[in-house]
């Protein structure tokens, strides 16, 4: 982790050093599945855009009744 310019408010409210560290670790843990899913979604969209005709799979609501 590199240095971060801390805003002046850190002088007003002591955020707790341990809380800051813990928060960063916990947030990374919580966000990992979300970020992974987003990464996969972006990848799938990217693949879909490169398919012939540049068409994406229409959603169920877009389907015309037979």
């Amino acid at each position, binding site marked *: 982790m590199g240095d971060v310019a801390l805003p*002046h408010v850190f002088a*007003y409210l002591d955020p707790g050093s*341990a809380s800051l560290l813990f928060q960063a670790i916990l947030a990374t843990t919580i966000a990992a599945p979300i970020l992974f899913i987003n990464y996969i979604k972006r990848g799938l969209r990217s693949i879909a855009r490169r398919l012939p005709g540049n068409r994406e799979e229409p959603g169920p609501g877009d389907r015309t009744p037979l």
Partner: protein
Amino acid sequence: MRGADPPPSSVRDPASWRDPSGFVYLRNGVVHRQIAPSYAADWEAFTRSPLSALLVDQGRLLPWSEAGPEAAFDADAAAVIVPDALNFISYPYEWTFGELRAAALLTLDVELAALELGFSLKDASAYNVQFRGVRPVLIDHLSFERRATETPWPAYRQFCEHFLAPLALMAKRDVRCGLLLRSHPDGIPLDLAVDLLPGRTRLQFGLATHLHLHARAQRGHADDGAAGSRAKLSLERLKALIGNLRSTVSGLAWEPSGTEWADYAELEHPSYDRAASSAGTKAGVVERMIGEGAGRTCWDLGANTGAYSRIAAGRGYRVLAFDVDAAAAERHYRSLLADGRADTTPLVMDLADPSPSLGWAERERSGLLERANADVILALALVHHVAIGRNVPLSMVFELFARLAPEAVVEWVPREDPMVRRMLAGRVDIFDHYTEAGFGDALAERFEVVERASIAGSARVLYHIKRRP
């Protein structure tokens, strides 16, 4: 901006000194807030951002207006604002479980909205929230700052101590743990919270992480200041953290039942909650005695689930409904939410031990009597509980009423009433003066009787009284 010397009518709020960004003062009796030059850039960015208008439109932030430089408290003012007036300032240790949870969710929702627009809350104090009726609103306009890239949320620990820890204790241990906020005005220390929480809370992800592991991290890295200052957090990760906090808070539940007073209305007096429809009886007399509210304030002492608060609100009063029973107050709060009413705020309060003045020099949080703003009080089916249940002499009861309001509607409950008989059963009757004559003598020390009316079908009597000049 250059202001003149403070005029005699400007009084600085003794509770407003923690944040150097500005302070609150009363000018001619109106709440003003002076913004310091050190916060001017953040304030300008906030007011120019769509965030400020969005939060006000959503009812999440208290509206305000700009005041001219002549309204400044002193020369060190970058700007002055006048927030909308609030009828009453309440504190987190007076809120029901649902109110504290609503305040917590408001704080997180504001933080999420702020993050989307490049801002963040620099603090997450429960004292930054007030209630208009049953709706929480953020009152600290100076809490917003432009978020520096990759900065963690400086208010994370404060949020856990002010909101999550007391809510978890109330939900998982005992709802009365909310009163711990009275002895810990800076929030419940996490090591204390996890010692008090049941062990099974270690198995619930949100509580296990934000409280148990968080407390352990505090113990393990208490002296590691430099490491914390190097922590980085991307926007996506921070939003995930706040979202997880939100789902943890949302998942905390408490069922307000089982206490004597929460079930009083339904079990003991089936007609209690339908009081308003019983015109001509107690409800009808109360409605006549309190008269038109016209925006005045009524304190309903011992409000239970709010049957008579609703009558006062129906007459146009703004109502503060106090009850010692957290479950009764919570049920009242939920019924108001369900009805969409915005004229009543239920609060948990023991009249025999009201909130004292707290904090630095005992001036940060005002005691209940300092905040007395009632035009009229309702004390229905209350006096016997205080006089017999708590041994408070009747003269002292009316002394307190006289300090609270110039007018009252008070119910006399005689000895032959089943409730009084139940209270006296199993104990020595030392209450020789508990007679209607004794009640009248105590009352007459400070009040004069406007009207005395018997309640139909009951030995109980209602008194409409006004404080002597």
